[in-house]
């Protein structure tokens, strides 16, 4: 059986918020979306980008958790915090290089995208990928994406000297092998 993978292509995002609404429908966190729909540069462009958990191979959120509340299952999915353990310190929110975890003050707990574990574990697609009209969020096999898209799936990110490898892949130019970010440069621009 071919392994299904999650691919994100932010350049395809049309900002329709369908993924956000679909995520809210999920029974495990009903009424609350685990997806951020980021506006890239509101003044200059209408471009948006969906942010789901990238499911790092070595998750920074779990590493910094002082309460041992974030766990990664065998299939590489990094789960929401365990409710009985999470102390709501927001260390994970600050540590995540992709800005994924949400701290929810009303329940004093962190929640994050778990790639619809309840669905993907029984062979269904994540909610967001099923509704995305432009397939900016795509769930399928590596062979399929290679056949359908000219871009190259990348799951290696470099933040300064730190290399982060993820389960979720981002579609980028065929020439690039990894995506590099200079945080200081980005902060200077802001």
């Amino acid at each position: 059986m071919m392994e299904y993978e999650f691919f994100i292509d932010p350049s395809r995002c049309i900002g329709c918020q369908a993924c956000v609404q679909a995520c809210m429908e999920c029974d495990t966190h009903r009424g609350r979306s685990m997806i951020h729909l980021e506006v890239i540069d509101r003044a200059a462009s209408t471009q948006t980008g969906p942010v789901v958990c990238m499911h790092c191979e070595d998750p920074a959120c779990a590493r910094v958790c002082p309460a041992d509340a974030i766990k990664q299952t065998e299939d590489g999915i990094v789960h929401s915090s365990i409710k009985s353990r999470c102390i709501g310190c927001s260390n994970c929110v600050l540590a995540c290089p992709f800005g994924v975890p949400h701290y929810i003050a009303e329940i004093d707990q962190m929640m994050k995208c778990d790639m619809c574990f309840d669905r993907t574990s029984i062979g269904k697609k994540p909610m967001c990928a099923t509704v995305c009209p432009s397939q900016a969020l795509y769930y399928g096999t590596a062979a399929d994406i290679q056949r359908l898209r000219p871009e190259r799936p990348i799951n290696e990110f470099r933040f300064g000297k730190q290399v982060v490898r993820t389960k979720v892949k981002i579609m980028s130019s065929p020439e690039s092998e990894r995506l590099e970010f200079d945080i200081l440069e980005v902060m200077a621009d802001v």
Partner: protein
Amino acid sequence: MSSRVDMRWKQDFPIPSQEDSYVTRREFTKFLGLTSLAFFLGTFTAAARKLWKRAAGTPAAVPVAHVDEIPVGAYKLFRYPTENDPCILLRLEQEQFAAFSQNCTHLACPVHFNAATRQLVCPCHKGFFSAQNGRPLSGPPRRGLAAVAISIRRNQVWVELSHEERA
């Protein structure tokens, strides 16, 4: 040195969930050992306290009420043998008195006397005891109320620990 400490820290708090829920044989044995030790200490303490009480001697009989003080069907609360042991004295008939510990044998709520039904009632979980002999009638309690022995001397009701209590 610091890297070795780091490694140990990681072993104690693993990120993969299957390692987090894994119980080693050593941990399980430790759990069994410590639990057994806790049970042993608890039993030992209880036994030691009982022996200590017995060694301290039985408390003397004390008068708790005048016979005329309590009408038939009424009751009087008193504490015996210490201030922490609430008891209830009942006058069931003209010549019949009974006294029990007021602690319900289920979860130690104080029992109340219902003269109409001649029962002692625990309001917490609806436990009922016979006012004649303290035996449980219905509800959660399974053991009878601890009886306090009564004697009437010179128009006074005297109480002392019954033989079962003393043992």
